[in-house]
C-alpha cells in the first residue's frame, strides 16, 4: 500500500506531523511526501530517519520536492 502526502504550502511543523501520521497508517510504505521548501524536506527526512524509515528517492520539480520514503528493512 502506498500513500501520498501533500504538504506543499504548509509551514513548520505541519509537514512532519502529516508525514509521521502517514507512516503510522501505511506500515512499510512507500510514502510520497510533497514539500516546497528545503527546510520541510530536511525536517521530513530527519523525522523519517528517527522512525526507521529511509529516503528511497528525492525528485525536485520547479522548486518542489517529491520525497519517496520506505521503511528500512530490519
Amino acid at each position: 500500500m502506498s500513500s501520498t502526502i501533500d504538504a506543499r504550502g504548509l509551514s513548520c511543523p505541519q509537514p512532519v506531523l502529516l508525514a509521521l501520521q502517514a507512516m503510522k497508517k501505511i506500515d512499510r510504505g512507500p510514502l510520497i511526501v510533497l514539500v516546497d521548501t528545503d527546510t520541510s524536506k530536511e525536517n521530513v527526512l530527519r523525522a523519517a530517519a528517527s522512525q526507521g524509515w529511509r529516503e528511497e528517492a528525492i525528485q525536485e520539480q520547479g522548486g518542489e520536492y517529491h520525497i519517496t520514503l520506505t521503511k528500512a528493512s530490519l
Partner: protein
Amino acid sequence: MAAQWNFFATRNGIITVGAVIGVLAPLLQKFGNPGNMGICVACFERDIAGGVGLHRAAVVQYIRPEIVGFVLGAMLAAYLFKEFRSRAGSAPIVRFILGMFAMIGALVFLGCPWRALFRLAAGDGNAIFGLLGLVGGVGLGVLFFKSGYNLGRSQTTYASVGWLLPLVMLGLLILMLLFPQIPGKDLSGILFYSVKGPGAQHAPLLISLGIGLLMGVICQRSRFCTMGAFRDLLLFRQVHLLSGIIALLVTACITNLVLSQFKPGFENQPVAHTMELWNFGGMVLAGLAFALAGGCPGRQLFLAGEGDGDAAVFVLGMIVGAGIAHNFLLASSPQGVGQYGIAAVVIGLLVCLGIGFTMRQKV
C-alpha cells in the same frame, strides 16, 4: 536532481551555529549593547518601533542594525543557495495578531527566547521563570498541533512580495545613514534616538550590522529556532534544534565568564524585574503565540528574509505590538510589570487560546 548537502542542517552544523551565536552576542554586549541583551529580537524590534516613533518611551528608541542584518543576511543566503521562494497567504491577520501578543508577552518578561537564554547565561535567575513559561506556552501550542491546529497553506507568489520586508529593513538602514545619531540629541531628522537607557546602549553600527548579517546567513542555513527546539522535543522527541540551543547557552555562559559579564542572582539584573509569576506568565503568552505562528521571533525574521510573506506579517505585528505595549503601559520595566501588563497577558492568552481552539481541522 541530487539534493544539495547543507552542513548547517546537520547536528554538528546546528551546534556550530549555536556556539557562534553564544560567543558573538556577549561580545556585542561588550561592544556596547545593553546588559544581558547581546541580542534580543523582541527588545530590538521594540527599539526600532521607538526609533520610528511608534511609541515615545524615550529610553528604548534606536534602529537596531542587527535586525536589519538578520533579514538581509537570510535573504543573501537564500539567494546564494537557491532557497529564496516568495510565498504568502496563510492566515495573515492571525499571524499579525499573534505577532502583537507575542511582543506584549515578551515585553512583560523583558526579552525574547534568545534573551531568556542570554540572561540565564549571564547569571540572571529570573530568566528561569521566563524559560519555564516559554516551555509552558510552547507545550500548550503542541496540544493544539496534536488536535489538528493549522493556519492553512501559503501560496507561491510574485518575487516582489518576498522582497518587501527586506526592503523595509534596507529602508531603515538608509534612514539611519541619512539621519545619524547626534550626541546628546533625541531626534535626528525623522528618527528618534535614546540618550539614556537601553536604547542608548549599542555597539558600533558596522559591527552590529556585520554580526547581524553573519547570523542571518548561518541561521537561515541551519533553520535555527529557539521555540522550535522546545516544540520538537515535546511534539516529536527530537533534540536536533535543542542541541543548538544548548550549545548557545554553554558558549554564552563561558564567554560571559571570560568577559567578566557573569553575575549570578535575581536582584538588580540589567533590564529585568523580579516578579516571578509575570516573568513566567509573559513568556507563556509569548511561547504560545510563537508556537501557533510556527517560529520564534528570530526564525520569523530569517523566514521573512527567504521570501515568506506570512513571517513578514508576524514581524510587523511584533513591531506594532511594541508600539501598543509602550503606549498603553503594558511593557515591564526594572521596577516591575506595567500598569496594564497583567490584563494584557490575560487577554492575550484568551485570544491565543481562541485562535488555537477555532483553527483546527479534523485529521
